[in-house]
């Protein structure tokens, strides 16, 4: 066996502990975790080896360890851990550090990294939206949105007397310009972050990686896994999480489809919102919105009762954003239908704050797991260690 000198990085251990892995030093290497985990491969299984590497502060090795993404925080390891070392929470902390390590624009990553900074993190989308209103000459209506009701859009008389959100944020100059820019920014940051991570994964690889089949087939397999939660369903202790995750995941898919269809209505059919409640796109949007609210509240409830990842601000921020998105989205619609103009417009403003937050911070906080996990699972599939035994044959 080749001798290696382990560089112990004490600051990295502190970083893990500060990010939800505060129990890491309790581990005494019994390896119960690697066995009770249904997702862990037979060869070089996790999370026992990650626990010892974390205790030694082996930063370089851990930051290019794709195995941390094979973990879905089922908490079987945490439930059976004889020492309360919570390997699941430690791997969660490592995923957070990984996302923050490879993302560009470190300033934004820092804003969402610690709960103490979150008020400032929320300030940024609020300021962007205020600039948006100023740019469109609508800022004065925010104080008293009631005035907007009797106004009409582009001189069309049928819009007068109704609550129409485009009166506050015009579709093109208020929404599209600002949100498309934010989305493009997120995509560029993701691209840079994922490229950095891919390079790291492939430097001094611990496992032979052989490419077979097509790249489309490879990612299609990983995405199919996400859509069906096959891996997540192998969890025992927190099996409920595969259900809540599926619910929230599919409501996001539904809402993305709603947005896409709404753009077709807007740009191709020239049919502006709000749509009547019987319209197919409205039905899809409402069903997805309700599913998002139920899913996110269910998730928060399981988090609070099962005490797993309870110390991870990283997870909590995403739960807050998802619940906030759902509640303010549905709230805007309900208050609009109840004809409570001021409340409806203000709720809509908060809703857009959540959406803008999600767009600009996506590459830096937990929602980024959808990209990093997809990439890492593709990598582990290539390394022939992705598929758990339970899914084989």
């Amino acid at each position: 066996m080749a001798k290696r000198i382990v560089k112990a990085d004490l600051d990295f251990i502190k970083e893990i502990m500060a990010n939800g892995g505060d129990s890491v030093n309790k581990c005494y290497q019994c390896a119960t975790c690697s066995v009770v985990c249904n997702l862990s491969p037979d060869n070089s299984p996790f999370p026992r080896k990650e626990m010892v590497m974390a205790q030694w502060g082996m930063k370089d090795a851990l930051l290019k360890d794709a195995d941390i993404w094979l973990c879905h925080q089922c908490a079987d390891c945490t439930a059976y851990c004889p020492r309360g070392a919570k390997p699941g929470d430690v791997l969660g902390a490592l995923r957070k550090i990984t996302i923050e390590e490879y993302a560009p624009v470190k300033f934004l990553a820092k804003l969402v990294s610690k709960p103490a900074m979150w008020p400032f993190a929320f300030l940024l989308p609020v300021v962007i939206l205020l600039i948006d209103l100023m740019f469109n000459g609508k800022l004065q209506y925010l104080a008293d949105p009631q005035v907007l009701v009797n106004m009409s859009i582009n001189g069309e008389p049928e819009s007068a007397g109704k609550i129409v959100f485009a009166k506050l944020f015009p579709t093109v100059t208020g929404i599209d310009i600002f949100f498309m820019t934010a989305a493009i920014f997120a995509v560029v940051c993701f691209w840079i972050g994922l490229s950095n991570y891919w390079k790291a994964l492939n430097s001094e690889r611990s496992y032979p990686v052989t490419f077979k089949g097509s790249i489309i087939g490879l990612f299609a397999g990983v995405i199919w896994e996400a859509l069906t939660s096959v891996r997540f369903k192998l969890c025992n202790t927190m099996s409920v999480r595969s259900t809540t995750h599926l619910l929230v995941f599919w409501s996001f898919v539904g809402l993305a489809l709603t947005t896409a269809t709404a753009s077709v209505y807007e740009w191709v059919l020239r049919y502006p919102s709000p749509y009547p409640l019987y319209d197919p796109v409205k039905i899809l949007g409402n069903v997805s919105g309700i599913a998002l609210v139920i899913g996110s509240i269910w998730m928060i409830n399981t988090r609070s009762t099962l005490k797993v990842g309870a110390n991870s601000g990283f997870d909590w921020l995403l739960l807050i954003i998802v619940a906030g998105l759902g509640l303010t989205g549905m709230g805007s619609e309900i208050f609009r239908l109840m004809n409570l103009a001021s409340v409806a417009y203000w709720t809509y403003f908060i809703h857009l704050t959540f959406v803008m937050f999600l767009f600009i911070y996506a590459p830096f906080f937990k929602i980024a797991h959808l990209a990093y996990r997809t990439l890492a699972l593709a990598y582990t599939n290539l390394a022939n260690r992705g598929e758990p035994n339970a899914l084989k044959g």
Partner: protein
Amino acid sequence: MIEFQGKVLVIGGGISGITAAIEAAETGVEVYLVDKNPYLGGRVAQLTKYFPKLCPPTCGLELNFRRMRENKGVEVMTQTEVLKVEGSKGNFKVTLKKKPRFVNENCTLCGECFNVCPVERDNDFNFNMNKSKAIYSVFEFANPPYAVIDPSVCLGEKCSKCLDVCKYSAIDLNMKEEIIDITVGSIIVTTGWQPYDAEKIDNLKFGIVPNVITNMMMERLASSTGPTGGKILRPSDGKPVKNVAFVQCAGSRDENHLPYCSYICCMASLKQCTYLADQDPEVKATVFYIDIRTPGRYEQFYWNVKENPNISFVKGKVANIEADPSGDVWVEAEDILAGSKSKEKFDMVVLATGMQPTSANWDLPFSAKKTPEGFIDPDSLPDGIYLAGSAVMPFDVIRSLHSATGSVLKALQSISGRGN
């Protein structure tokens, strides 16, 4: 010469209690020794051999019984529980409840009654691996050397077959429970330990997967007075074992079960490896461990066992066990040194279950606190009451004996009339 003022009560008649009782009696004090079981010797009586010398425990027990016969200062009360302790150092009023044995001292253990008794019961002394009759002798060499009747299964006077065959008028089905009040100056608590309930360790499947046994069951299987007459046969089909796994820390060092190291289980498993090797030199054994803990001079014992090429050691705790249709048992662990998971098949699996203090399930008859694990907190004990043996913490036999002898000095000081 010191005149001790009062008697000493020893609660628990295991190796620690027996030792404390005879050591105290040999200084001239009168001693009561009570045990809830119908025999003395406690857990040690169930062992096949002691480590590290591998001599039979009946030998050690018998030496003490002889001391007691010669001294006559120890009054033994079996099937007796302590209900209440009142008063203080020098003057404890103790209430005892003595269950009926239904057999008196005329019994010669001739065995005629066992032959005619029509009902059977699970033999709890052998961890229910065999049956005994409703009237039975707990084990060969049991002390007191009289049969005992289990009233929960005995058919009573309507049957009376045992009465008809007993030539010594030794059986009395009308014996009643007695409440006995005694006064003592000092009390030594030697309530010892019980094997941790292995069914609670759900991933090790004890009670679900056949041929998964505990280390104490292994002691009975290897014992000549055990259910198989000393042949180590697996319970499901009586097949002689050829390949056995030992699962260390089954419940010990685990905050979901016993948060402490039970101290003796590593030595117990190593000792049991020698039982297997003695029975069949070809037999293979694998010990799955987190750390092998053989403190002090016990290290030598570990080295000796390790020299046997048929006994191997895997660093990695067993975390999953599954049944094979053949009766074999699949054992899964991460072999840490190899860096991969291992799933191997064995004839039989021995869980090295740890020591839980008996006091964990004991409604204390005196005022004292318990630790979260169920040990009696020695600092909370009233003056005049002392702990010894594995009621203090998990001990091997040697440390139990030292602790017992030490506790006698404390007890005698407290009734010496010289203050302390």
